[in-house]
């Protein structure tokens, strides 16, 4: 069953790709939502910011939906355990996300200033909260989540929802928010002019620096916190449940992979030059490059977490030996094979037509254009 082993690892990588796609694409739109009220001082300026992402937010959001669907299909135990265990947090994420499409579609449908101001706050909440929860969820995965299974794999969550917002999780949440603000601001600078351009460049600079600081503090924290270590488990290539392994906790265990494979240090290390060059590029007006470098920083940050945790995906702090790993939480070989086929065909298509959509809508969005275009948000 070597093929099964390869598929498990492939789908772990693909999950990483999806999380990166989600973070970069949805993060850009949510970053714009977060800084909307700051970069846009007048109604027209805010509409410029909204219309920059207007044609794309809906398509981008599918990264998020596909992320959910792919975890369901490829990692059903993780989908089931994480989504039910983090119930209240998931509801916050969901409720803040479902008001977002309405914010985009309904905001500019009425001329009233109060109406639009209200929706601007909705767009702020629906940008800030989901990115905070996204980062906090990653933080909780690193710390382990208090869940355990019964004999038939019914999952029970034994923590309270307040513990999900512990200091380390909030730090990860803020890292995610600042990275989103950076890519969002870079997107605005790329497609706007004048005051809104200058304010967005300013936001990108300081949010990028704060993100680097948070990433550093988080990294030091991870290096001393309790990590998980797989002591004994069935053959990784075999079909198994999380009831058949032995896991131990040890401080600094999350660095074990880095100690074993020195080249992995390049992943966290690359975040620093990428972000600093990105900020430098903004200063020179190369906003397009700055956005791409921000995307690479996202990839480095998520890659750093993945490299630390492998093969753990969702460790259990209540019953460490029932932790969910790449080996015991995946779908069957049959399902993974079919999903691989569909992904191989459709993912390149998606990237192709998404790029085409961005190309069609390329160029600066000006205040005059927003005022005269009756299709605009």
């Amino acid at each position, binding site marked *: 069953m070597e093929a099964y082993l390869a598929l498990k690892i492939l789908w772990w990588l693909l999950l990483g790709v999806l999380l990166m796609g989600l973070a970069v694409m949805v993060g850009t739109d949510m970053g714009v939502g977060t800084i909307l009220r700051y970069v846009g001082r007048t109604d027209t300026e805010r509409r410029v910011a909204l219309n920059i992402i207007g044609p794309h937010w809906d398509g981008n959001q*599918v990264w998020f*939906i596909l992320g959910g669907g*792919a975890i369901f299909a490829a990692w059903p135990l993780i*989908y089931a355990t994480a989504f039910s265990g983090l119930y209240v947090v998931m509801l916050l994420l969901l409720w803040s996300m479902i008001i977002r499409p309405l914010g985009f579609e309904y905001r500019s*449908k009425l001329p009233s200033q109060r109406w639009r101001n209200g929706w601007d706050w909705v767009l702020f909440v629906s940008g800030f909260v989901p990115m905070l929860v996204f980062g906090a969820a990653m933080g909780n995965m690193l710390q382990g989540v208090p869940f355990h299974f019964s004999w038939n*794999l019914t999952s029970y969550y034994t923590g309270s929802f307040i513990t999900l917002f512990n200091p380390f999780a909030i730090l990860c949440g803020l890292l995610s928010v600042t990275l989103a603000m950076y890519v969002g601001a870079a997107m605005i600078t790329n497609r706007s002019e004048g005051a809104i351009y200058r304010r967005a460049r300013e936001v990108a600079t300081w949010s990028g620096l704060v993100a680097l600081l948070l990433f550093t503090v988080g990294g030091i924290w991870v290096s001393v916190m309790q990590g998980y270590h797989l002591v004994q488990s069935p053959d990784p290539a075999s079909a198994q449940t999380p009831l058949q392994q032995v896991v131990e906790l040890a401080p600094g265990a999350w660095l074990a992979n880095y100690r074993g494979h020195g080249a992995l240090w390049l992943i966290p290390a690359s975040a620093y030059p990428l972000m600093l060059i990105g900020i430098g590029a903004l200063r020179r007006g190369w906003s397009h490059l700055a956005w791409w470098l921000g995307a690479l920083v996202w990839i480095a940050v998520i890659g750093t977490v993945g490299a630390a945790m492998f093969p753990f995906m969702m460790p259990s702090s209540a019953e460490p030996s029932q932790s969910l790993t790449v080996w015991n939480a995946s779908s069957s070989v049959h399902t993974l094979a079919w999903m691989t086929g569909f992904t191989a065909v459709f993912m390149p298509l998606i990237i192709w037509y998404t790029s085409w959509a961005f190309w069609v809508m390329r160029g600066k969005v000006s205040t005059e254009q927003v005022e005269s275009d009756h299709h605009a948000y």
Partner: protein
Amino acid sequence: MISDTVVELSRWQFAATALYHFLFVPLTLGLAFLLAAMETVYVTTGRQIYKDMAQFWGKLLLINFALGVATGLTMEFEFGTNWSFYSSFVGDIFGAPLAIEGLMAFFMESTFIGLMVFGWERLSKAQHLIVTYLVALGSNLSALWILVANGFMQDPKGAHFNPLTMRMELSSFTDLIFSHDAQSKFVHTSIAGYVTAAIFVAGISAYYMLRKRHVELAKRSFRMAALFGVLATAGVITLGDALGFVGGHAQPTKLAAMEALWKTESAPMAFNVAALPSQTQQRNLWALQVPAALSILVTHSLDGTVPAADALERQAAERIRGGIPAVEALKRLSKSPTDAAAMAQFKAHEKDLGYGFLVQRYAPDLDISKVTDADIRKAAKDTIPLVWVIFWAFRIMVGFGLLMLAYFILAVIYTLRNQVQDKRGFLYLALWMIPVPFIACETGWLVAEIGRQPWTVYEVLPTWMSASTHSVAYMVFSLSGFVVLYSIFIAIEMYLMVKAVRQGPDEPAPSLGGGMPHAGPAGALLGRRED
């Protein structure tokens, strides 16, 4: 053990959020194709009025689409948040169509709808037309994959239980996607969406004709909607009949409930036109019957019979007895996956595993070895779903379907004779018809999903086991949150929709007070003419 209250609240929450989501989906499915048809006429004839039509109905589509997308997010989350055992137990099969929906359909629909709205000036006519068709295709493909997933819950094909991973796993992808239930359901549901959109467009066009506003645009829109609608309604009824035929074989308990059949009868069986079913007494307190009609309707022959509740309950009791040793063996396998005796016992009773789970609910401490005969009788009774709801929801759906067919036949006659604008009574009827397809869609959902009870996956996984192990407080919190948010949403949506309809396609834009720039947003709402 999950408390019954939590399971009940989880069911209410899922039903409420799914029914709400399903208010917006059918209109999107159909309106997208109607838009594409209007734009096709515009591109081939070059007549501006068809572009105005596409743009005006496009505005209404977007107001509806925003809520469809928003409430669809809830559905993607809710299996995991509230049905976690369901998700891990059948995720290997059920997750795949959901993920493929994202890959194949949802990305396409969502990416191109951005271009459809913002791309009028940036794309050539032909490019924009293709984009509109891709939106329509994307939304319909989306429905296909969702209904493949739902088809699995109704009639689990292409899957087997793997005792090593303690869950259902995919054995044949093609059996899963080509399941008859999934296919006929997809066609029935998506065409129901076309009917919904046709009634919606015809109704609003009728409103304009009554007010003598935008009459040219309204007449043309009405004609397209009427032709689209009459074909779609005929299709939906044919496919609905096929679905009843397929579903009747796959789920005899649902069929017995739809027809309120309590006692087995010999052929030809009478059809209950109306009845007052009593679940506790297991009989109809009153019934209006047509002799022999049921055999003809359901089996398409005079000597066919349909199994009734009493016989189905006896069969269920048998299978429950077979399921008990299966659950016992599985528990032993969970501790030691290599126990050969347990594996042999499991293999012998595997097919009744779901029925074992069904009765486990009544065992003290969920210990299946303590199940009594009384528990088995209770569980067997559970296999008959709530008859009165299914019986009446089905009749409302079918009755409204026939009503819509009659309405569309008249609509086509009037519109082809070019007299519809003068038939004021008929125009009022058209306006009042707008809620009818929405009610028919919702009742159809009720028949399908309440009719599947007490299972989430028919004969495989009972509902009581499927829910997440939340506290009642969590469920009250989330259910209240949804009620509050969704009530606000529908109020805003209806307000904007009614306002957009009142303002109509080519009214001049009102000036925007308070130093606001002119036109712009209001223009977007009004669908001002290009020229």
